[in-house]
């Protein structure tokens, strides 16, 4: 590793996660048990305050087909708007990680995870960010993991004031980050489809 003449190293280049990402990051889903505990299936833990929700959707490619080998990670605040990290803004409940990992069904491309609805969290320069989930998507054919956000369509007032949504110049693209609430038996479900390309292409972020 050679630093440049200012003393900096350069970031390691990304490569696609490939078709077999599940072996490394979700081996149970790849078809074998190897670890005593797989990571990322329990996002909120048993003690988290706030509303229990399910989030489900699909990732859709430029031909309109579901992507059946994708892996998503979520990073979110708790109901009080705190992230489970020393710089996360405050305490979180015992067992709340705010991080999760989910893969799609290999036949249908459907994915889903259970968590709690996050609260608003601080933004820059005194702004408040609307409740949202940070999402990161990797798959075969994706050369650099894609960052996006999921907001809650039923948080109209908070979304209208959110500094990230309102920063998106094209108002018609902002809606690609909104998940619709679907009431049914059990916990409320939010539906969030991610379009990699084409009509309604989801907004992805360079962070």
């Amino acid at each position, binding site marked *: 590793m050679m630093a440049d003449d200012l003393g900096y190293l350069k970031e390691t280049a990304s490569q696609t996660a490939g078709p077999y990402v599940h072996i490394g990051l979700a081996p149970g889903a790849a078809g074998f048990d190897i670890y005593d505990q797989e990571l990322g299936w329990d996002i909120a833990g048993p003690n988290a305050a706030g509303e229990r929700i399910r989030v489900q959707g699909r990732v859709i490619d430029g031909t309109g087909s579901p992507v059946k080998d994708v892996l998503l990670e979520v990073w979110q605040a708790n109901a009080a708007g705190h992230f489970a*990290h020393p*710089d996360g803004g405050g305490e979180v409940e015992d067992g709340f990680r705010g991080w999760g990992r989910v893969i799609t069904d290999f036949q249908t491309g459907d994915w889903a995870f259970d968590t709690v609805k996050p609260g608003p969290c601080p933004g820059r320069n005194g702004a408040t960010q609307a409740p949202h989930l940070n999402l990161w998507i990797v798959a075969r054919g994706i050369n650099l993991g894609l960052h996006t956000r999921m907001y809650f369509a039923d948080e109209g007032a908070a979304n209208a004031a959110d500094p990230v949504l309102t920063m998106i110049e094209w108002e018609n693209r902002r809606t690609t980050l909104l998940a619709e609430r679907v009431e049914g038996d059990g916990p409320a479900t939010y539906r969030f489809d991610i379009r990699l390309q084409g009509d309604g292409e989801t907004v992805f972020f360079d*962070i």
Partner: protein
Amino acid sequence: MTKPAEFYQRDTARHPPAFTPDYKTSYARSPRFSLISLDQGVGEVTGPTFGHGDIDAGDNDLLSNYAQPGQSPIGERIILHGRVLDENTRPVPNTLVEIWQANAGGRYRHKNDRYLAPIDVNFGGCGRTLTDDEGHYHFRTVKPGAYPWRNRVNDWRPAHVHFSVFGTAFCQRLITQCYFEGDPLIPRCPIVQTIPDPDAITGLTAKLDMNATIPLDTIAYRFDIVLRGRRATLFENRMEGT
């Protein structure tokens, strides 16, 4: 409490673009719009933390973590080790490193892999570990085999190990692949060649490390990983409210 500092802007020239037509799967899976640049906030400069309670001590030993008692996988026994650093040359301690790979014949233990090379009953093909205080990690495994894949008619992947690394913040999250120096398939591989910068490709190539070799036992390769660096808090930065 000091305010958390931002990370340096990602140098996109270091990474493959989304649309790389020689790697055909990228065609329909690449966004057409430019990424929208987002000023980092608390959710970007924080990320999940992991501890020794999350993993087992033997999870970094692919020679034994799926083998029957007293047996070993077939193949060239290797130590694959290195450091996780940031762009400021500082080690990234206590961060989760996860790997997965094909066996010595080039076959993955995966429902969707139908390559005719056989499954090795003693090889799972995944491992994970936490870096130590100086950012070091190491795995024991077998050197993976090259394998063919459906892209052009006769494309073969060079021997490679897939790596997933967290760092301390969600904006550092990285998945990449490690190759082995001297492999003639590296310059022929459409996935390697999605990276436009030859120096960045060199950075993905593990080097033979005779000093880390265990005589009469295991040969060693070294692969260092660099994650995005963070601004010093020499001056008040403008990320408020966190």
